[in-house]
């Protein structure tokens, strides 16, 4: 069931959440209210690094209107010496992230929480909490945190036998790296830095929580996984999962960062103590200070190649910021930077570095853009030195089917070359570029590629035929990128009914089977797979019902265009039975028609992307603007092309912000100095051109519709593509992001 003649698969159907969103009816996290509800607020650390000697909440508790106060004593503690994992999250760090325990590890780290009759009273009560801090020296940047005399965040953490801020390492190798470099005709080694960047979702974290008198808890919040909300809240409060109903709200953006929680366990404990429903809503400032971001990085990449461009060795050393607690996404740069290339000798090493910043969270292809920025810029430099077209250099080195990936598995089909060819033959790459259109203005063009693993994993779906012969599909995944529309297309196609007759809903934790996070570019892959399996079983039931009505064998019935038909002349002559007719007879012919399917899905092949960008630089002011952007990606099968294009465009725009303008700025006291959308400069609409997506549809053979994850690969190439374009324009390479106007201007004033 996958070809271009499909009626609904591949159609740009009206999105099921669209009307609610444009009319303001959609219920986001902060939109739930309850009778008797009170407000929770967090007291946050005023210091970047401090030991907490004591917390006195008595004055806050005595303030009229205050109903409950929560500190770390109310959150389940996970001992430092024993790892308890939930997915990729270590609960030792999560319990200390939602509420500081021994130490405040960053400015803004939650110290205590108050629930009161209004936000104002709760905020006032927070100011009455007396915390005795022993203020400690702080450290923000990687370069400083790895110095031998750096302030140590966690005395118990040892690296190479000494207390250290390096909290973890990851090493991948292939071949013999020294031998590889010895064989090379050219070796280029460069060091790159990127700054932490926030996911920038418009919806701040928020939740409403009710702890009822019988001990049952209901949580309304948006996230990238209601089951994660339930499991993590359960672990941090000690309440069994069976008593926690996590209801997913519409989500106003997550981009990875809503794969963990901040507020829910705190709100649960406030609700439990007060006996009242509790609502907590972060301000934008709190979001910027204490949630996300993606790590900053310090990377050194060394690549050796033959004169013909064949890469013979690649070495990467990637330091990533973890924030105040361990856990940066090392597998991103370590595993992805060289994965798309067939390189015989590779050494890729990552270091997880803690410093006094908010704990990093996943952000679209976590860690992969950092690594690709370094690797793809070095490849560009080598191609230039060898006089090769940078796309030809990539074509020459593409991994192929049967190659062993640096991160373990053996590749099936590798569709990297197709993305390179798509750019190479696109009019954009061939269009002439006037490199000096006006005095003081320079233009340049750059390309880069990217790789992301993609993922499968657990997914549950319920497909029910309603009594009036329509279809309700319930999935367990929050919809962040069009999964509802995509699933509706698949189910409508399979059953053969109009798309408008299929209503796709998102179930809560107590009404649908376990479904893992919406992340890793996995949800459309996994949910389409389970929805296909469930729908096929439903069609089987429909055929059985028709067979029963006609008194023939079920195998003698076929299903076409939403109707049961005799499979051939031998089956007998019967008028077709429509879905509506079968639904009307369902109960007398055996009961309700429906199926729940739950699978741990596999077969998610990697995503490949190649991008081309033209930039224009205002040389005197140092302003870089993107003029034209074309992004080619193997998307497998675009179940809903509008959403797939949106994923590619969204990833590119975030990459543009990362490359040119976004960064966390800290003051001398270790406080974020730009905790607002005004001074944390994400691109606005007028900053970016129309991003032209090229969807290459090479069906993934391991998926019923050929789906391949698309959400993450598009943020991997832009950093390097833009840096390479700026080099083409100015003749200077930039090894540090963002290429903001003051930086570009300073670089232009440097002697060559």
């Amino acid at each position, binding site marked *: 069931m996958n070809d271009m003649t499909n009626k609904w698969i591949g159609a740009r159907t009206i999105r099921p959440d669209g009307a609610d969103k444009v009319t303001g009816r959609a219920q986001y996290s902060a939109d739930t209210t309850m009778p008797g509800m009170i407000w929770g607020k967090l007291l946050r650390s005023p210091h970047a690094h401090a030991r907490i000697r004591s917390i006195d909440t008595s004055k806050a508790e005595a303030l009229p209107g205050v109903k409950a106060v929560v500190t770390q004593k109310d959150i389940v503690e996970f001992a430092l010496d024993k790892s308890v994992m939930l997915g990729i999250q270590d609960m030792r760090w999560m319990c200390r992230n939602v509420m500081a325990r021994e130490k405040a590890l960053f400015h803004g780290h939650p110290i205590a929480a108050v629930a009161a009759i*209004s936000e*104002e*009273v709760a905020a*006032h009560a927070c100011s009455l909490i007396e915390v005795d801090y022993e203020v400690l020296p702080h450290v923000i940047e990687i370069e400083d945190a790895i110095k031998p005399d750096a302030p140590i965040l966690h005395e118990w953490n040892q690296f190479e036998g000494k207390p250290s801020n390096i909290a973890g390492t990851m090493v991948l190798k292939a071949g013999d790296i020294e031998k590889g470099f010895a064989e090379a005709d050219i070796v280029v080694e460069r060091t790159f830095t990127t700054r932490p960047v926030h996911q920038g979702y418009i919806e701040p974290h928020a939740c409403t929580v009710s702890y009822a008198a019988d001990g049952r808890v209901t949580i309304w919040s948006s996230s990238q996984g209601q089951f994660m909300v339930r499991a993590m809240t359960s672990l941090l409060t000690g309440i069994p999962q069976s008593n926690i109903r996590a209801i997913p709200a519409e989500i106003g953006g997550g981009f990875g960062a809503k794969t963990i929680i901040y507020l829910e366990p705190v709100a649960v404990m406030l609700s439990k103590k007060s006996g009242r429903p509790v609502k907590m809503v972060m301000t934008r400032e709190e979001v910027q200070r204490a949630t996300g971001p993606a790590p900053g990085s310090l990377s050194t990449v060394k690549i050796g190649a033959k004169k013909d461009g064949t890469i013979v060795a690649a070495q990467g050393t990637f330091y990533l910021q973890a924030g105040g607690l361990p856990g940066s996404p090392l597998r991103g740069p370590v595993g992805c930077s060289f994965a798309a290339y067939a390189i015989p000798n590779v050494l890729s090493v990552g270091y997880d570095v803690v410093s006094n910043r908010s704990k990093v969270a996943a952000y679209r292809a976590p860690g992969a853009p950092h690594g690709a920025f370094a690797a793809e810029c070095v490849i560009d430099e080598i191609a230039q030195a060898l006089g090769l077209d940078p796309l030809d250099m990539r074509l020459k080195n593409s991994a192929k089917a049967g190659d062993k990936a640096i991160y373990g598995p053996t590749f099936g089909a590798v569709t990297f070359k197709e993305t390179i060819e798509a750019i190479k033959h696109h009019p954009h790459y061939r269009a002439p570029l006037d490199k000096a259109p006006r005095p003081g203005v320079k233009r340049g063009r750059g390309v880069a590629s990217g790789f992301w693993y993609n993922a499968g994993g657990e997914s549950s779906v319920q497909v029910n035929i309603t009594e009036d012969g329509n279809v309700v599909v319930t999935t367990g995944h929050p919809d962040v990128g069009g999964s509802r529309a995509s699933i509706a297309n698949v189910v409508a196609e399979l059953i053969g009914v109009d798309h408008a007759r299929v209503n796709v809903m998102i179930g809560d934790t107590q009404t649908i089977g376990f479904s893992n996070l919406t992340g890793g570019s996995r949800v459309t892959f996994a949910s389409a797979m389970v929805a296909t399996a469930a729908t096929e079983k439903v069609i089987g039931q429909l055929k059985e019902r028709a067979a029963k009505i006609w008194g023939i064998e079920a195998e003698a019935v076929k299903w076409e265009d939403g109707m049961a038909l005799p499979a051939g002349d031998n089956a007998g002559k019967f008028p077709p039975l429509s879905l509506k007719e079968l639904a009307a007879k369902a109960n007398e012919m055996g009961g309700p028609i429906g199926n729940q399917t739950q699978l741990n899905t596999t077969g998610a092949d990697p995503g490949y992307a190649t991008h081309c960008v033209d930039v224009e630089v205002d040389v*005197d*002011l*140092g*302003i870089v*603007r993107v003029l034209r952007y074309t992004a080619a990606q193997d998307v497998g099968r675009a179940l809903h092309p509008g959403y797939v294009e949106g994923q590619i465009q969204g990833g590119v725009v975030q990459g543009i912000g990362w490359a040119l*303008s976004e960064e966390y*700025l800290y003051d001398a006291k270790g406080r974020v*100095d*730009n905790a607002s959308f*005004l*001074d944390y*400069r994400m*691109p*606005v609409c*007028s*900053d970016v051109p129309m991003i032209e997506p090229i969807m290459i549809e090479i069906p993934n053979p391991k998926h019923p519709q050929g789906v391949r994850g698309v959400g993450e690969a598009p943020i991997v190439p832009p950093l390097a593509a833009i840096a390479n374009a700026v080099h083409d324009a100015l003749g200077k390479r930039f090894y540090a992001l963002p290429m*903001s*106007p*003051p930086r570009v*201007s*300073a670089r232009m*004033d440097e002697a060559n």
Partner: protein
Amino acid sequence: MTDIRYVAPSTLEEAVGAFAAASGAARILAGGTDLLVQMRNGVVKPGTIIDIKKIAEMTAIEELPDGRIRIGAAVPGVVLAEHPRFGKAWPGVLEAINLIGSKQVQGRASPGGNLCNGSPAGDSVPAMIAAGAVVTVQGPGGRREMPVEAVPAGPGRTNLAPGEIVVAFTLPARPKGSGDAYLRMIPRTEMDIAVVGCGVSLTMAGGVVTAARVGLGAVAPTVLLVEDAAKALIGSRLDDAALEAAAAACRAACKPINDKRGTIAYRIKVAGVLLKRTAAIAAARAGGN
């Protein structure tokens, strides 16, 4: 929690009376696009808010018989943009005012608020200074006039006396051959705050500059009138040497800080670049008038 008193007087005398009576605990509300944000962020906690938009003079645009134009301090940006003649006489002032905030903010934000907010980066202020605008101020001691550049005292502070309210801006009559312009450097294309802002007003005769004023924003604790830059332009044909001298004067006038919006070195450099670009636009406009 403390209550806030809101008053909306219909005369200036009442407004001044209420403002003076509150002895520092009141804030003036025009468009509110700074005040409400500051209140929300807990930066200010006024006991009284005095809404001046009900006072006719504060929202009037008047063309005086001698060619001057008087703008009420609370006139929102969109109203100025819709005025049939203001933008023709003062395109630079108008473009500066219309850079304050988004479309929605434009419906509320006023030049009076922009000036009294005291931000060194206020967009309308360098353009108003370049225009030679004079503000009318009314307070407990009566009415007085002061040049725009005399109003700011430092970030968030003005030289207004206690109880004084800015009532109007008066822009001088425009001789033939005049043009003005305002440019700012922002990292984004919109929704941003000036890293440097530059206003230039020129009057030219036969290709020679006969009068010039230059206002420079976001490079010092207050928006600056750069008289040396004007001097470098007056009498010139805007040749490269004159422009470079004016740019050098702008750079010399800068006393910026390193902050999240720009470095000292960058701001100083940009001040010179913007002077040249702004002067070129003003000259082109002067040539067309």
